[in-house]
């Protein structure tokens, strides 16, 4: 809980450096993984709703989503992973058919 470290506290510099580097890498580097930044869906105050009737399956929302939470394959209507969708509205903004509506999130 209380930590103090100065040049005169150094006992085993290499070992202490190894410990620091291990902690540094653990806290600093993250491999590609689902939800690396936590459940970003909790940030949402508006949620995107896709109106399938208007959607032309072009994939623009998939391309632009900054959280990479839109799943889409050519010829299919996309779907959105609401665990991580942060509600930014980029998808709605880029959709050429205005097929995505941003709706106030109900709690």
């Amino acid at each position: 809980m209380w930590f103090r470290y100065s040049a005169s506290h150094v006992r085993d510099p290499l070992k202490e450096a190894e410990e620091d580097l291990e902690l540094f890498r653990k806290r600093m580097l993250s491999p590609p993984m689902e939800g690396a930044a936590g459940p970003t869906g909790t940030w949402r105050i508006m949620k995107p709703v896709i109106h399938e009737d208007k959607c032309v399956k072009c994939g623009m929302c998939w391309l632009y989503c900054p959280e990479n939470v839109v799943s889409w394959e050519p010829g299919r209507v996309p779907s959105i992973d609401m665990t991580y969708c942060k509600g930014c509205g980029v998808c709605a903004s880029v959709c050429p058919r205005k097929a995505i509506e941003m709706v106030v999130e109900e709690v």
Partner: protein
Amino acid sequence: MGLHRKVLIGNFAVAEAVKLARVDVVAAYPITPQTLIVERIADMVERGELKAKYIRVESEHSALAAVYGAALGGARVFTATSSHGLLYMYEVVWWAAYSKAPIVMGLVTRVIGPPWNIHSDHHDILSVRDSGWIVAMAENVQEAFDLTIQAFRIAEDKRVLQPMMVGLDAFTLSHTAEPLDVPDQSDVDAFLPPREPLPFVMDPAKPFAMGNLGPDEWTMELRWTVWRSLERAKHVIKEVDREYAKKVNGREYGGLVERYRLDDAKYVAITWGAWSGDAKEAVDKLRDEGVPIGLLRIRFARPFPREELLEVASGAKAIVVVDRAVSMGLDGVFSTEVRSVLSGRVPVKSVVAGIGGVDTSYRDFVNIFKRFVDEYEKGETQEWIVPEWYMPWFKG
């Protein structure tokens, strides 16, 4: 150990050191008085004397960002700048330190405007003191050269892994030719092996994100690792100083500080940078007159020589710090630091001089030191907490 005597200006000496260090990547943007360093390096690359990638960029921000990226890719890197250039880099300065990227930067200290002024004071280099960079400053051309080679060893050492800045005063060193002992490439190679890929290497084949969003506690833990590295760096700096003397050119500087005539000193003056040479002459003059004064020359502002200062102060009656940088609203920069370490153990007088590059000769140091000793002996130290601005030409 083979040494070759040359006569070089400070900027060319730094370029020569960078060549001998076999850097892989250099990126820089020209700014007086630093430009000659990177111009000379560009020449070396062009002529094939240095096998490095030289990246031309459109600004200092990009220059530091480019070498930062290259350092994270595992390369040995160098950049150089001055004054406004450093301020323009400022965002990346902190990113580099917090990423433990072992970058080496040459910093030719120059006044920050306005008004436009290309001469030397120390506000630019000291603006990075809280960031996690190792910050050193040379007294002469030889030391600027030696520190530049040593900087790669210190920054890249596993126990440290922090970027390092080597400061040299505008014109007094950057454009002044002095005799210089240049070592053989083989001696430098033996002293400075190729860089280890630490703390990590960015590799597109094994992708990961760096510095991703996380809990606030993680940030604090990361800063703690930087804190510890800077403290360990004190040992590494001394070790590198000794080893460089042994393997490369016989000169040992004393680690974080240089002690000049301090053994029996009752009065201690503290300076850093090129004008320390003038301060030493003033010390000699006062010694000739029987005043027991010595000089503690700070070589490394970060990590700060806390332990050395405490030791030197333990035998001192009074200390004077002559600063070429002011923390507006408080004190001279080094005065604040000296006072903070000493916590009232020894009376400290703070003098601000040479701001804006105002020429400060050994005679000025004689004036400053004599007044300091005189005030102490008369017991007139009540106002020492407020820095005294030394402007002999100014009528107020």
